[in-house]
């Protein structure tokens, strides 16, 4: 299934599994000419998507990284798929630091970070199947 511009991995159920797709982002992102700093932002967003899928999903978590070098501008897409109960991303309130500082639960930053670090974030979720698609365009010189 893998071709030069497409890589897929099933995350292992082991410590640091959320980092398993990072090398694929590096590989295809460098091929597209993304800067080191842009790739660092993409990787941070991918780690967040994988963390959510590993925490709330069931069974296999799959990550597909696809490069589109012929598009103008070239872009990188990452899709993280899990098979958990699903959630309504629109119902997730944006976190505010001031209220988090006084709250027992300080988590809940993942989707907010993804939205700011990527050009597009699309969540399609139904019970049993959640797909989070992250897209970042290459900045043209």
């Amino acid at each position, binding site marked *: 299934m893998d071709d030069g511009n497409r890589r897929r991995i099933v995350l292992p159920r082991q410590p*640091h599994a*959320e*980092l398993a797709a*990072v090398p694929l982002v590096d590989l295809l992102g460098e091929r597209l000419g993304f800067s080191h*700093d842009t790739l*660092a*932002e993409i*990787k*941070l967003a991918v*780690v*967040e998507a994988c*963390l959510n899928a590993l925490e709330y999903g069931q069974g296999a978590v799959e990550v597909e990284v696809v490069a589109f070098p012929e598009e103008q501008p070239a872009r990188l897409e990452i899709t993280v798929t899990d098979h958990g109960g699903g959630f309504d991303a629109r119902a997730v309130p944006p*976190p*505010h*630091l001031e209220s*988090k*500082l*006084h709250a027992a639960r*300080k*988590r*809940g*930053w*993942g989707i*907010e*970070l993804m939205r*700011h*670090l990527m050009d597009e974030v699309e969540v399609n979720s139904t019970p049993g199947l959640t797909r989070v698609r992250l897209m970042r365009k290459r900045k043209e010189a």
Partner: protein
Amino acid sequence: MRVETFELKLAHRDGRLAVLEVGGYINNEAGEAIAETAGTLLAEGHQVLLLDLSHTRIINSIGISLLLEVLERIMEVGGTLAFCALSPSIAKTFQIMGLAQYTQIYPDRAAALAALSPPL
């Protein structure tokens, strides 16, 4: 250093100030280690804590939430949480969260020490 390796080192302490070098991946385990060490330093009277992130490769939101616990505890005693040497992606993450409003952020350790150390 492998990306998932985590290193924490007490690099300096002087009066109210303590400097922790944080390397590798700040996740839940790393965040808990930082929070535990920060708690010890606070109990010892170090109310100005500088985290030097020059060797931090990546951070996740669980690690960040644990840093918020550290910030909350420092604010409760009227102390200061400071960071230096952030990579551009971590700096952007902190900016998205609004952390600069509650912490001090410096480009490098020399600048941080100049600002945070008590005058001689």
